[in-house]
């Protein structure tokens, strides 16, 4: 139907001792959205880096617009029209939008930058992306993650881009922003730009993708699959090599004896962010917070944990009132948090697994300040075994684990602490499909052991599937509360968006 823009065939990339890519085939047509699927470590990132000139393939050929090429440097790839937007956006927060867009290829004459002309060009690029509301003179650090992504895309388009690679672009976006992103992508493909789209979320691929290539263990296990007639079960089977679907654990049959609530939040407010938040969580109950990014969900959780200082209201755990703005007080009362940004907020990546697990319970392993490291390792090993953290070995650095296993390490920390209340902010972000069900099972079994759980997630089906009770947060206030079984995805969407101009 359309011309082949890119063909990669038999790509092999070896690092000493590891075959990261063992013969990958991929072909992309002009004007299509080609989705790249695979679990963490399947080789997606390496493949992209080969394509964008960061790595040189050991074997295999890249054919670009009919000619065999080798992208020896990232600059060469960009020159040819391949632009890559990585998940960690590579923008400079202290520079303005225009400066970021033209970073490295400034609009200048005789060494002097031509600011007015550059602003004009950026305005045109942003308009092309349908985001003319972003001012070229705004500092990038002041923009929302979604708008920063738009700036990255404007930068890509400032080169003559024919292929845009997006690495998990939706990870930082809420539903509405994802819709915006898709509109932008459709606009680009209509102009003939090809897009390689990487995502864990199958439902997104259903919506935006034309064809799919699936990688597993550095090999192509399926390529050129039409999105329209490849069933989800088949994709999961290809990715995992097993046929599983992620299922949510069953809720307990009969509502347990409720008794007094473990966690009680009364009139909690943070000036300018949210106000008058009230809810209670009983032992064994999972309460979900649904809402758009920026609606205040994460902020509510962080504030009740003491990570931010509440301006009004109280939080009590087992009847004991927590000190405002004190994480220590929350932890002492038995509250644990698995934060949204696991790597930057939750873990010491270069430290051993066991040290990350015992981090909040050091007092238990110390006598007069001296740590019993043997005991630490033994307890950590028990926990990692029971949570099935792979690969095992509690002395390896946490960095070497996949997202799902890192999340298990965070959960193990609070298990060890025997916490009464567990706050989970985006518990499955960056966790691949196979490990998700395990995390869900784990959260449910914690609840069954009497822990009061609060789950925040941008994925509505996750909140609905996992939680017993759901609170819908909109613009800094809880606007709805009901049992999860009384809601469905459409209803929640309706609630989170109500009053907003839904444009799609």
């Amino acid at each position, binding site marked *: 139907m359309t011309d082949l823009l890119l063909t990669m065939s038999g790509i092999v990339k070896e690092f000493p001792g590891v075959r990261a890519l063992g013969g990958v085939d991929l072909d992309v047509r002009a004007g299509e959205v080609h989705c790249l699927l695979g679990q963490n470590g399947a080789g997606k*990132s390496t493949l992209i880096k080969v394509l964008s000139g960061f790595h040189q393939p050991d074997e295999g050929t890249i054919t670009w617009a009919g000619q065999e090429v080798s992208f020896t440097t990232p600059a060469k790839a960009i020159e040819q029209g391949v632009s890559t937007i990585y998940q960690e956006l590579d923008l400079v927060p202290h520079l303005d939008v225009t400066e970021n867009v033209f970073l490295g290829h400034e609009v200048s004459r005789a060494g002097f930058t031509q600011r007015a002309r550059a602003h004009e060009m950026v305005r045109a690029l942003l308009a092309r992306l349908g985001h003319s509301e972003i001012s070229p003179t705004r500092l990038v650090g002041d923009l929302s993650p979604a708008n920063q992504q738009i700036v990255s895309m404007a930068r890509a388009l400032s080169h003559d881009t024919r292929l845009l690679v997006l690495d998990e672009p939706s990870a930082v976006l809420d539903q509405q922003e994802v819709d915006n992103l898709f509109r932008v992508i459709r606009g680009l493909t209509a102009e003939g730009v090809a897009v390689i789209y990487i995502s864990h979320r199958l439902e997104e691929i259903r919506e935006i993708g034309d064809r799919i290539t699936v990688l597993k263990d550095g090999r192509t296990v399926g390529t050129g699959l039409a999105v329209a007639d490849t069933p989800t079960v088949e994709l999961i089977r290809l990715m995992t090599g097993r046929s599983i679907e992620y299922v949510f654990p069953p809720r307990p049959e009969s509502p347990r004896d409720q008794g007094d609530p473990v966690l009680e939040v009364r009139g909690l407010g943070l000036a300018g962010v949210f106000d008058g938040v009230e809810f209670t969580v009983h032992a064994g109950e999972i309460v979900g917070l649904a809402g758009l990014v920026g609606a205040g969900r994460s902020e509510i959780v962080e504030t009740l944990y003491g990570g931010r200082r509440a301006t009004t209201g109280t939080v009590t755990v087992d009847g004991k009132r927590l000190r405002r703005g004190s994480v220590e007080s929350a932890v002492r009362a038995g509250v644990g948090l698995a934060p949204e940004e696991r790597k930057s907020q939750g873990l010491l990546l270069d*430290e051993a697994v066991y040290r990350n697990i015992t981090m909040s319970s050091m007092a238990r392993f110390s006598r007069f300040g001296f740590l019993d490291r043997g005991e630490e390792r033994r307890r950590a090993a028990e926990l990692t075994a029971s949570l099935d953290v792979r690969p095992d070995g509690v002395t390896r650095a946490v960095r070497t684990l996949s997202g799902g296993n890192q999340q298990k390490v965070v959960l193990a920390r609070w298990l060890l602490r025997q916490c009464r209340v567990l706050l989970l902010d985006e518990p499955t972000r960056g966790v691949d499909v196979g490990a998700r069900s395990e995390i869900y099972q784990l959260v449910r079994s914690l609840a069954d052991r009497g822990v009061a759980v609060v789950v925040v997630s941008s994925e509505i089906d996750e909140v609905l599937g996992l939680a017993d009770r759901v609170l819908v947060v909109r613009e800094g206030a809880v606007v709805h509360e009901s049992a999860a079984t009384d809601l469905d995805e459409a209803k929640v969407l309706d609630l989170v968006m109500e009053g907003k101009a839904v444009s799609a």
Partner: protein
Amino acid sequence: MSQDSVRVEQAALETTREPNKALALLGTSMGRNLGLVIALLLICLVGVITAGDRFATSANALTILGAAATIGVVSIGMTFVIIGGGIDLSVGAIVALSSVWCTTVATQTMAEDTHWVVMVFVALAVGAGCGLVNGLLIAYGRIVPFVMTLAMLASARGLAQIISERKTQIVRDDAFADFFTKEVLGIEVYIWIFFLVAIVGWVLLNRTTFGRRTVAVGGNTEAARLAGIPVKRHTVYLYVLVGVCCGIAALMLVARTTTGSATHGNLYELDAIAAVVIGGTLLTGGRGSIVGTVIGVLIFMTLNNIFILNNRSISEQELLKGAVIVAAVLLQQRLASRNSST
């Protein structure tokens, strides 16, 4: 994500790579220290060749250790602050202030009949006090450590000059100097104190909750805070710790020179940071080694010693010191990238 899976790949490399065992070993903490020991031995070899019988004597070894003791104690404190994600530029000034303050106590007439232990107490208290001010303003006043300790550097030395009226204060109480310079098993007491501080520092860093917290705070402050570690309080402790180390160093200096002076400890901050960096501690925090720091100090002091024995100028020493720092850091980076990227 993209970055992460590459790291996973890299990690797999570390475990699977067979050849280059020596280089792999040099990447581990044990190996890094081994590398430093080898470097120190090579430097000693240079000493033997160039200065022969004057270098390779036990008396000369004690000279080197004596010179290393003061700066070594300061460097051990500095190691903790740097692992905890901070820096202390004021160590030299705190040494000066402690030395002046404690000798003032000893030289005042009213203090004629006070025991010299009072001097010890004053020096430690002054060091701890300066560290406390640093720590409180950094942790709770949110002043960047570099700026805060730069301010302390200026102020503490200024105060030392005011107290001493820019004069060198001589300690006439022999018992004080005698205690610190008395030989035990052929080694002077203040050198034993250096060994003791090093051992206590190692245990503190590697075997206690205090050390574990230091690594956590420096490695990822936000994660440490959200795990319930009292980050601010711990930061204060770290600066108090380095302050106490400065107090100890001041006592050693006063005992060896029998004087207190506002010029004591000049540029100690640079020597200490250099020794810490050479010893393999990351300036960005989160990882470091006491053994490395101790060897780093010994490397510098041995080099100094060789230069002096060969009648070379101070300027040449300084020149070489700079080169050693750059060479050591370049080598470490090489090893680190060999080990974790390839």
